[in-house]
């Protein structure tokens, strides 16, 4: 290479530069997922608040009937998945910022584990309501 030709001595691959991601190849996914789930949660949680006006103080039979309707089950499931995915992403950032050293990795895995289990429990509860609702109707 001719030393007189000006060139940039940056430690970064051309592909990484073109993609704007750096070498890791996954810098923006977390950020995007957080925004997309946030935007999804706007209509979903509005729907939930409206439902709570219809359902506040209701007894078991009413709640089962409500949860058994396909549209409600759909909205609920979407709300649960979006909520716990968004929570996972958000809590992960908090852990990254405040938990240092050896505790960091286990805490991160724990956050992912617990939020996943909660989401799964919510989905199963909805499935069970759908089944129970269809038995009654």
């Amino acid at each position: 290479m001719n030393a007189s030709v000006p060139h940039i001595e940056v430690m970064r691959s051309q592909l990484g530069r073109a993609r704007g991601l750096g070498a890791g190849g996954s810098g923006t996914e977390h950020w995007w997922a957080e925004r997309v789930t946030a935007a999804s949660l706007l209509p979903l949680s509005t729907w939930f608040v409206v439902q709570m006006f219809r359902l506040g103080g209701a007894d078991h039979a009413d709640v089962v009937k409500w949860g058994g309707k396909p549209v409600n089950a759909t909205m609920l499931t979407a709300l649960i998945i979006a909520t716990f995915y968004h929570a996972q992403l958000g809590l992960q950032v908090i852990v990254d910022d405040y938990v240092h050293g050896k505790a960091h990795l286990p805490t991160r895995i724990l956050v992912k584990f617990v939020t996943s289990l909660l989401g799964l429990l919510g989905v199963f509860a909805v499935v069970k309501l759908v089944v129970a609702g269809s038995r009654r109707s």
Partner: protein
Amino acid sequence: MQDIRKALYVGTRSDGRLIQRPMSPHLQIYRYRLSMVLSISNRLTGVVATGGAALGVFWLAAAAKGPKAFATARKVTGNPAGQLLLVGWLASVVYHTVGGIRHLIWDSGKRYDKEELNKDGPVAVGVTAGVSAVLAVGLLGVAAKRARALAKAGKAS
């Protein structure tokens, strides 16, 4: 380099030379600003909202499990301490939503100047307080009314 953590602050300039990256001053150095409080509150309310969502899932699971489990859940949602918790959850969700909308606006490149930030902060607080209060009063009122009607009809579970 006396502090090992300083190793994390070593970066490279675009010409390849090693440099010491600038370090933010410590939190205590800053003058109090409303936006500081609002920013950390957005995180705190996010954590509280997650806790509330967990309670919501338990409520759903109780409804799915059967009338007996749901009756227990109703005891929690029906009593004053439980309702205080629910109102706290509601306010957190409202605050986090308002804060989240502000973040989305900032991400689109708007309202991110110093004056705009300082002007919008109190508005966000006001909107949160207003919406939370209206929803809390409305929801608790509706719930209490329905629960009383059910109790009267003698079919409260």
